[in-house]
């Protein structure tokens, strides 16, 4: 049943997104050529989840991509999306299980029978000797929601371990924690189409031109309709280059900046007193806190002109409708949660919430970053966004799973904390799905010691990642094109991933691997799933009544609509594109919560020995730890290797060998000398493994609330180096000839032409 809304919801040029997806599947059109079949699906990469068709030939092989006019992306794709299909028939694919006979023996091919026997034997041995919590699962948010749900259930029901967490811990947990504290629900508030109706967009720590290229169309659509864009980023990113106001603050000073904005808004009496009074709690403390952040002080902390604080505050404060978005730039901090809360304070103080063109949201990074964090692979969470320590929540899930509540493990520890437990021998066995910690975690030397210290390590992936290459058992899984399921994009829109081809060789789906392992562990009756659809049906029931309620969503509805926003509590509910339209939070009292935030120095502020700030991030041609994108030729050609971005005032010439030194280690990169970086800051992209890994340098310091590592700032110094560190080519299975380190273009030691890559005429 559709509700009547008191205001127009159709933005110019936009279909009615309230239908939960606008274009029904039967209207999707694309050319069919000859014997070719087009399978509608979504991208394997980031949280935007662009629609695309995979082109499948008469033999059932995926051989290309065709743009799809889906309401999320309107046919648009980024360079990663265009070549995503090339993963499917890639020569590096894992075709059969691999095992290692001893720790230092090479990996060899094995049957599923032998590999799973070994996994189950080791799980039993370790758990019998050291208790159930000595074996852990580590998951990932590029898996479908079905797989993420099943992994959480596998850990709690089949392994009965409290140690399960996932790589979203490196990604979106700060925003998730802040959302829960302020709103009582972890979800962005508005669909991106709301941007078409806003007057001011504030974008903080989000290099959307490179990390979410396709949503730049929403920013430009907003600007074409008169909106002003304020970008807060230490670097001139592609979206910052043309912004109306680019605030190039020092890494690690965001909270001071947002408090400064609120200071000016209070001083200029631009707060929405009625909204604050009627709908929020805790304003007085926040108002008193920001009183200590006048523009002059903030300008000094952030290294920016004080006037920019005033200009940005007035733009935001005077707008009738304004929207704030942020991403990892402000979240990868020891006060990542507080940074998000500082933005939320600004949103609440001005009542910019729950209306078309007024709202707030984090831009979640991973393909299923939203869905992958809602249904229980996270250490403190149960399906439906439920809390594992809440007795009612435990009771509900125990009932759905058919177990005794007493047998449901308690809250575990976070990903990075588990690395410490592995180092100390508290966790002795790990099975990893869909993650690559030996590239992605900070302080790589320590992570490497932790994995070496394990008695048993199994890893599940479809390419041999750097982490899988060190495992005792490697289980080959499917790419996203070889299985069906759902992803939930960064707007909280649930979309359907469709199967386009059969898995290669003996590769099996992650959910089959989980069910089969559970069966061998004696929990087969709880894992009798024959298809992803079966798992989704259980997930619907498990999520029912929770904050992330998927009960009203079915595969059929997703296929008919192109996507539905959760919460969707029953089968005739249209989904919820925009939260808080009734101006009520999801706390029982319906009030929004302010939280006072004081700016704090990074864990490792610069000093005499290490005078510069190192910040890390992504480049447009690569994705996360690069296990997928470092194998795709066009992307490798665009950006073959990492570099260090330095300001001309540091005195290096472009292409020079520059050694970046921190207390954890040092790496020598080619210098990209550019004015787009601050003079007191250097930047290194993080997609490559050691010895050139950015995470050799980063600090393992965690946000006490979200436990996210501080990837975005640590102290470093730069000096002239002698030899640029080579990059390792991606590991391949034993039946393939290794690529070697000197193959073109990996042997190329030049920096890119620009942070986005090498120009096509550069050869």
């Amino acid at each position: 049943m559709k509700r009547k809304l008191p205001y127009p919801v159709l933005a110019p040029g936009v279909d009615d997104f309230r239908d939960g997806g606008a274009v029904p599947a039967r209207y999707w059109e694309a050319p069919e050529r000859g014997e070719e079949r087009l399978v509608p699906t979504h991208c394997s990469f980031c949280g935007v989840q662009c629609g695309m068709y995979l082109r499948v030939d008469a033999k059932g092989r995926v051989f290309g991509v065709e743009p799809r006019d889906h309401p999320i992306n309107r046919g648009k794709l980024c360079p990663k999306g265009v070549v995503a299909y090339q993963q499917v028939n890639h020569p590096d694919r894992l075709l059969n299980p691999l095992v290692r006979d001893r720790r230092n023996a090479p990996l060899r091919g094995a049957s599923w029978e032998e590999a799973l026997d070994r996994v189950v034997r080791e799980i039993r041995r370790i758990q019998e000797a050291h208790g159930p919590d000595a074996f852990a699962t580590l998951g990932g948010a590029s898996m479908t929601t079905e797989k993420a749900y099943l992994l959480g259930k596998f850990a709690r029901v089949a392994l009965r371990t409290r140690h399960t967490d996932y790589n979203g811990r490196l990604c979106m947990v700060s925003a998730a924690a802040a959302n829960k504290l302020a709103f009582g629900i972890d979800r962005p508030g508005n669909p991106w189409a709301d941007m078409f109706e806003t007057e001011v967009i504030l974008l903080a720590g989000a290099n959307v031109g490179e990390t979410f290229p396709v949503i730049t169309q929403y920013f430009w659509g907003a600007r074409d309709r008169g909106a002003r864009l304020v970008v807060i980023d230490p670097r001139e990113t592609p979206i910052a280059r043309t912004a109306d106001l680019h605030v190039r603050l020092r890494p690690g000073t965001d909270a001071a900046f947002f408090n400064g904005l609120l200071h000016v808004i209070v001083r200029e009496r631009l707060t929405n007193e009625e909204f604050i009074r009627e709908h929020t709690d805790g304003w007085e403390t926040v108002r008193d806190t920001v009183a200590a952040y006048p523009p002059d002080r903030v300008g000094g902390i952030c290294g920016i002109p004080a006037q920019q604080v005033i200009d940005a505050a007035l733009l935001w404060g005077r707008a009738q409708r304004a929207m704030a978005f942020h991403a990892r730039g402000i979240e990868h901090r020891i006060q990542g949660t507080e940074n998000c809360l500082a933005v939320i304070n600004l949103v609440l103080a001005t009542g910019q919430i729950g209306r078309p063109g007024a709202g707030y949201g984090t831009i979640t990074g991973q393909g299923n970053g939203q869905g992958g964090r809602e249904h229980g692979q996270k250490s403190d969470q149960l399906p439906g966004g439920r809390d594992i320590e809440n007795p009612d929540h435990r009771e509900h899930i125990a009932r759905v799973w058919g177990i005794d509540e007493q047998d449901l493990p308690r809250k575990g520890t976070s990903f990075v904390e588990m690395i410490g437990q592995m180092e100390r021998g508290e966790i002795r066995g790990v099975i990893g799905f869909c993650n690559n910690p030996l590239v992605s975690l900070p302080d790589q030397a320590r992570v490497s010691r932790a994995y070496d210290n394990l008695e048993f390590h199994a890893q599940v992936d479809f390419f041999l990642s750097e982490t899988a290459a060190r495992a005792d058992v490697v289980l080959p899984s499917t790419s996203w094109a070889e299985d069906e399921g759902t992803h939930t994009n960064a707007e909280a829109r649930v979309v359907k991933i469709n199967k386009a081809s059969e898995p290669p060789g003996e590769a099996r789906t992650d959910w089959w691997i989980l069910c089969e392992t559970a069966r061998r562990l004696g929990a087969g009756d709880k894992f009798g799933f024959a298809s992803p659809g079966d798992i989704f049906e259980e997930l619907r029931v498990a999520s029912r009544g929770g904050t992330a309620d998927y009960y009203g969503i079915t595969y059929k509805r997703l296929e008919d609509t192109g996507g539905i926003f959760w919460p969707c509590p029953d089968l005739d509910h249209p989904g919820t594109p925009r939260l808080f339209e009734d101006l009520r939070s999801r706390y029982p009292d319906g009030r929004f919560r302010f939280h006072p935030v004081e700016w704090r120095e990074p864990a490792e502020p610069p000093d005499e020995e290490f005078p510069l700030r190192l910040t890390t991030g992504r480049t447009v041609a690569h994705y996360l730890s690069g296990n997928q994108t470092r194998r795709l030729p066009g992307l490798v050609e665009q950006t073959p290797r990492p570099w260090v971005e330095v300001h001309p005032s540091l005195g290096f010439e472009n292409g020079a060998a520059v050694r970046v030194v921190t207390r954890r280690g040092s790496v020598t990169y080619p210098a990209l000398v550019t004015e787009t970086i601050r003079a007191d800051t250097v930047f290194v992209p993080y997609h490559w493994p050691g010895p050139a890994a950015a995470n050799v340098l980063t600090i393992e310091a965690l946000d006490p609330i979200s436990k996210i590592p501080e990837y975005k700032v640590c102290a470093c110094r730069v000096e002239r180096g002698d030899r640029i560190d080579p990059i390792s080519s991606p590991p391949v299975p034993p039946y393939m000839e290794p690529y070697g380190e000197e193959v073109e273009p990996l042997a190329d030691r030049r920096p890119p032409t620009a942070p986005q890559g090498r120009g096509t005429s550069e050869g």
Partner: protein
Amino acid sequence: MMGRTMFIDPARCIGCQACVAACRECDSHRGKSMIHLDYTDEGHSVAAMPTVCMHCEDPVAPCAEVCPADAILVTADGVVQEAMKERCIGCGNCVHACPFGVPKLSIEEMLQYKCNLCYDRTSEGLAPMCATVCPTGSIWYGTLEELERERPGVRVTDVFAFGDLQVQTGVAMVLSPDYPGEAAPGGM
């Protein structure tokens, strides 16, 4: 009269190379991109710009004019086609004649390659691959009226000035609001 064509807006280009990747997907030159993507302000900003074939109209496409083998056909709808494989002698005249540096010469094959406005798509009413995928709309396909509806007040031109010489093109450029001239500046 611009009709349905491509509009290039360098201000919106984020340098992501989605156009380059999409161009490689074309069934007629799979694996080869016809698009040039340059970072135009190296060391100073992250500015970037795509160059596709501009499909020159007046004077008649210089590449076609100088082709000694008459290999470059201009179709009735104004699309300057790539050199016909059976005629092209790989001499490179077109590469030198093009005011925008568009055609590429494959030395191994002794053949010219260039953008043909995705003739297989545009002749069926679909947008070219690069314009379909371009995330920002820096490469955009449609009519001027449609563009004006999406971007109120947009300034466009299909004339380039190379000193005193003017070249009229089939593909149009978006001019920045404060650019003083009426024609786009030729050359980089």
